[in-house]
């Protein structure tokens, strides 16, 4: 049976570092996905995710196991992404920029370069990123936390310092706007 994040974090607080590796293994992928979605730059995303883990480790003694670990983790990532955007003094997406996939490098190389399916998935992911970048930041972040992070609404509310209703509203409004921005997926239709 898989151990809970909070138990692993308690191990880390007690100096058992192998548990920290497990936490990194669990969350690195989803964190990278969110960070890339916000920063639109692979290396920056890698840096921010790495710094997030290091910050977790350095501040491990301030963590209280009563609150979910992943809420803490995602809160740190979100804040570090915002800080990164402020520092680089340029948004993750310029609204004046053309909405063009052709100009945009794909974020990650597929594991099997000959896999057309995977390339299509990457292109789709990029399209989603561009669409998210057109939403108000709060709505886009709520969607990222919900779908990339898999957070519950209570956790989103805690991470974004808003009410439960506010978190739901952000997700709902964001989805409504996305539905207008993104092309309807013909393949999904019967």
């Amino acid at each position, binding site marked *: 049976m898989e151990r809970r994040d909070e138990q692993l974090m308690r191990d880390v607080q007690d100096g058992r570092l192998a548990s920290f590796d497990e936490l990194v293994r669990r969350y690195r*992928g989803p964190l990278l996905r969110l960070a890339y979605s916000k920063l639109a730059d*692979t290396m920056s995303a890698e840096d921010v995710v790495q710094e997030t883990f290091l910050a977790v480790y350095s501040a491990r003694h301030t963590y209280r196991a009563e609150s979910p670990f992943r809420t803490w983790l995602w809160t740190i990532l979100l*804040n570090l992404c915002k800080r990164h955007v402020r520092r680089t003094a340029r948004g993750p997406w310029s609204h004046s920029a053309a909405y063009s996939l052709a100009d945009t490098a794909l974020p990650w*190389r597929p594991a099997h370069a000959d896999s057309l399916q995977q390339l299509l998935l990457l292109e789709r992911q990029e399209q989603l990123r561009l669409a998210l970048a057109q939403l108000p930041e709060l709505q886009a972040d709520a969607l990222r936390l919900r779908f990339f992070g898999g957070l519950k609404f209570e956790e989103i509310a805690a991470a974004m310092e808003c009410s439960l209703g506010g978190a739901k509203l952000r997700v709902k409004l964001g989805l409504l706007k996305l539905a207008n921005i993104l092309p309807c997926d013909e393949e999904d239709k019967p």
Partner: protein
Amino acid sequence: MNCDDAFDQLTSPGANDNRSLSEHLNRCPRCRAMQETLSPAIAWFSADVTPNSAPTDLDSPPALFLSEDAVQVAERAAHRLAKRRASAPPHGISRRTIGAGFAMAALAAMFCFAFILPSFRTPPGRSTSTRFSSSSTMCLWKMPADGYSRTPPTADQLVATCAACHLTSQ
């Protein structure tokens, strides 16, 4: 399952086949319409590309970098979340229970307005405004500027004025 739970399920990553959700959607046209509107956008998130294939072909591993304010961000977040947790309702008392409590209180207030205020109802032939003539006598909804320019009404007066209007208009 209520509509709130249905929204949770609809937007839940990975929860695509849920029997209770289907049952709810069958009998709730509002949620069904919501699902039809949102599902195209949600479908875009389902294409999950695991970014484990992020550039790992670097010649050398990236240097570890941790700034002091990143640690402060983590510490502040930990304190804030612990504080938020502490101020949350005690375990076992759900938001729904609290909501039900508020609903009961609201019902009790409505009961008071319905059965107690009629005893103060204005006698036929007299204007409603004379009822509160000593301070703010007019309907503040119809003439808010006039009403507030004299003496600002207390919360009780304001509520009583509105309730009296509504009850006498029935």
